[in-house]
């Protein structure tokens, strides 16, 4: 795969399309793009191009197709699985100039954006009455295009779902440069749910150049509560009790001692440093409902043995509580020069068991492992702290992180809840999927990108080509009618 050394002909064509200022070949400039948020994978691209419009994206992709050259698309580069890691022999298509909000149709609760509009600015555009629910912690920087590629979640997805639940329309540039429109502002257009297939495809099916999102009204009332526990198990029990009571909080998050220590250093949000776990529960809904349920939650905190509780008195305090949680990854720098963020999932009821396993791995390996997790949906983010300056330590940290993933899959979970497979989790794909499953994935990829030019080397554990359709061949009626060709 790849087109060898990028030939000067292609660079000239890209320059013709986007202008000299927007085609980078200088090694120092390209270093900016050598990695995404997963910093221990680095590979400077031979050329980066920054198209300024959907038409330019299409022309760039078409030029790559004609040159047989693979490419990787990139937004803000906040991804945590190496999904936007450049390839040595391909073009990096940087979409940051496509950053306009094209339309706000509040009446129909839709917003139409270009891919590099940031996540937070969508909510800003429709607030304070409405909001865009998926809210990854990186939301001030991370872009909707990247969110679409990764099917990003966030703190509020236990109740509100993920990016895929909010995309109603896409304009996509396929790897041959053709543009397809999927869906629109309306729901249930006839045909296959190709939006469902595209969202979360990690840049391997094409580039979304226009994205239509659904936004929803802000709930009347919010109650943000924190309870402190002497053991993570007790906090986990409180979560189980809340779920068993039929309560669906907007968010349920747990931070352990190490995470609290790290974030307090930075945010001074007032979390006590001597507790084993802080459980954050946010309810939203109509006032009467929220009040009733908040009382239930506080009672459950008590029954589960909370050593203390805190209820946000106003919007400012609510923001502070969340600031600490959202800062958890970034703040980890206070504890350790390097850390490896893991993102695996277990069925919620297996959380306590898996956390004991994580502790065992920490004890055995000697690494400190901080835990922050989306407790409602069983999505763990253990942060394995290490020092890359010590020889062999990053490899060992990665091994420990890998062992956590394997344990989660064995418990019936997933190798990734929201960060994606990218390059980071490729090797774990076979723990979760059989050869036949992977073959089915490849069918989808081949339908979209038969030449394998879109972000090759990501997601699938081993490189695969799109061959002829296997098995006894029967002439397809669609081919007979001349409406489809075989790839």
């Amino acid at each position, binding site marked *: 795969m790849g087109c060898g050394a990028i030939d000067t002909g292609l660079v000239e064509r890209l320059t013709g399309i986007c202008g000299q200022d927007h085609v980078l070949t200088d090694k120092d400039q390209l270093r900016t793009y050598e990695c995404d948020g997963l910093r221990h994978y680095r590979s400077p691209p031979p050329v980066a191009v920054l198209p300024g419009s959907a038409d330019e994206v299409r022309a760039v992709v078409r030029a790559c197709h004609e040159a047989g050259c693979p490419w990787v698309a990139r937004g803000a580069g906040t991804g945590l699985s190496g999904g936007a890691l450049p390839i040595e022999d391909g073009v990096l298509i940087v979409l940051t100039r496509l950053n306009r909000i094209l339309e706000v149709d509040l009446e*129909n609760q839709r917003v139409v954006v270009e891919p590099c509009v940031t996540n937070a600015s969508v909510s800003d555009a429709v607030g304070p*009455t*409405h909001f865009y629910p998926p809210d990854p912690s990186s939301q001030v920087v991370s872009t909707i295009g990247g969110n679409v590629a990764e099917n990003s979640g966030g703190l509020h997805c*236990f109740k509100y*779902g*993920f990016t*895929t*639940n909010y995309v109603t329309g896409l304009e996509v540039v396929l790897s041959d440069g053709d543009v397809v429109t999927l869906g629109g502002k*309306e729901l*249930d*257009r*006839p*045909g*296959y*749910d*190709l*939006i*469902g*297939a595209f969202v979360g*495809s990690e840049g391997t099916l094409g580039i979304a150049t226009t994205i239509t999102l659904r936004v929803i*009204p802000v*709930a*009347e009332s919010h109650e943000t509560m924190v309870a402190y526990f002497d053991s993570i198990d007790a906090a986990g029990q409180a979560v189980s009790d809340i779920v*068993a009571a*039929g309560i669906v909080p907007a968010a349920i998050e747990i931070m352990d001692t190490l995470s609290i220590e790290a974030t307090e250093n930075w945010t001074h949000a007032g979390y006590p440093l001597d507790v084993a776990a802080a459980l954050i529960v946010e309810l939203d809904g*109509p*006032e*009467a*409902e929220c009040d009733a349920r908040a009382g239930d939650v506080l009672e459950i905190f008590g029954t589960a043995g909370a050593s203390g509780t805190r209820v946000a008195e106003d919007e400012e305090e609510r923001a502070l509580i969340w600031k600490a949680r959202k800062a958890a990854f970034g703040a980890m720098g206070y504890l350790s020069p390097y850390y490896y963020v893991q993102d695996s*999932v277990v*069925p*919620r009821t297996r959380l306590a068991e898996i956390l004991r396993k994580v502790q065992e791995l920490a004890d055995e390996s000697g690494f400190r492992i901080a835990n922050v997790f989306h407790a409602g*949906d069983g999505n763990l983010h253990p942060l394995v702290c290490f020092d890359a300056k010590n020889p062999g330590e990053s490899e060992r940290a990665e091994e420990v992180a890998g062992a956590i993933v394997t344990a989660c899959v064995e418990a019936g*979970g*997933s190798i990734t*809840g929201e960060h994606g*497979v990218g390059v980071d989790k490729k090797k774990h*794909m076979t723990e*979760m999927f*059989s050869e*036949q*499953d992977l*073959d*089915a*994935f490849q*069918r*989808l990829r081949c*339908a*979209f990108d038969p030449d394998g030019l879109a972000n090759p080397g990501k*997601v699938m554990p081993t490189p695969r080509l799109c061959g002829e359709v*296997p*098995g*006894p*061949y*029967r002439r397809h*009626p*669609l081919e007979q009618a001349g409406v*489809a060709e*075989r*790839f």
Partner: protein
Amino acid sequence: MAAGARVEVPSSPDEVGEVMRAAAEEELRVRVRGGGTKRAWGGAPPQPPDLELSTERLDSVVEHNEGDLTAVLQAGVPLARAQAAFAEANQMIALDPWLGDDGRATIGGVVATADSGPLRQRYSAARDLILGITVALGDGSVARAGGKVIKNVAGYDLAKLFTGSFGTLGVVVEVVMRLHPLAANRVTAIGTSDEPDALGRATSAVGHSPFGAESLDVAWADGQGQVLARFGGARPEATADRVVELLGEEGLTAERVDDDEGLWQRQREGQRSSDGAVLRVSALASQLPSMVRAAQEAGASLVGRAGLGLSWISLPAHDTGGLVATIEDLRRRLRPFSCVVVDAPDDVREKVDVWGEDATQLMRRVKARFDPHNVCNPGIFVGGI
């Protein structure tokens, strides 16, 4: 059952794979059958199926993980039966389409057709509730995608691709669904008006309110309409009362109905017709008054997910020519919005393109990759796929 079609009733995912492999070798056209409540949906196939694959024996709820709010169901499980079991744990699959008079509609059929009911306002559609899927493809391979947890981005989301694909990419064998708590109490605020614009204003007011209705529907028949907003939870009455006021402010005659299940069953039934035709319109919430007027002028009734812009226009029984002409008139009038014929007599189905638009090349490429031998429900989907 189609005349002359052989019937296979496999009892495990692997057996489904074997049936499909044999079918591919024999070059058979396979039609999948669940409860048979939506059998006629889709386009009239150019040729009758050679083989009917019944999911009747794939009827077990494999797992109900109460604490995880997930369930694994084989495709042939009647959804009503599963819901009754989940209700014992105060849980539900938040999908409530009409399930047939005797509740025969299966989860596989609901997923394959992406059918939905009033709960969609709050919980979205089948695509949003499905966590994982096992399918048997046209060459007999049995593949799984997704997982058993409510949050998972590993691999391509084939569960969504197969949802609403009408069995044309493969046979849905097993699904993993997300569950939600069943509301302890439910009440409905209902407002009546004979003014389509007032109904539009009222649904907009409720749809943009911060009250989070579980369902937000509209109904119209014989020159009069209702807005129905259902609230569920520990204390839904207070919220419903405030919405009754809101409806009143928009000029509707409004009240709160506590014993409201009948109202919602009527909404579900309004999406179906046994002798007339039903057209599903994918529009925008702001278009509601035009939808209502179009229905009124066509002598039809309408139910709709008012907050989502989806409407089902139900044409009363008429001769074939009359129904075909009305469907085509409505399509012209409602352009550019998609109008899919859901229910219709067979002879109407043969005279109109039920999907109303062609398939894209990309859709055809997806079909060709997943079902290269064109074994799976050929001809019934968009563009003759």
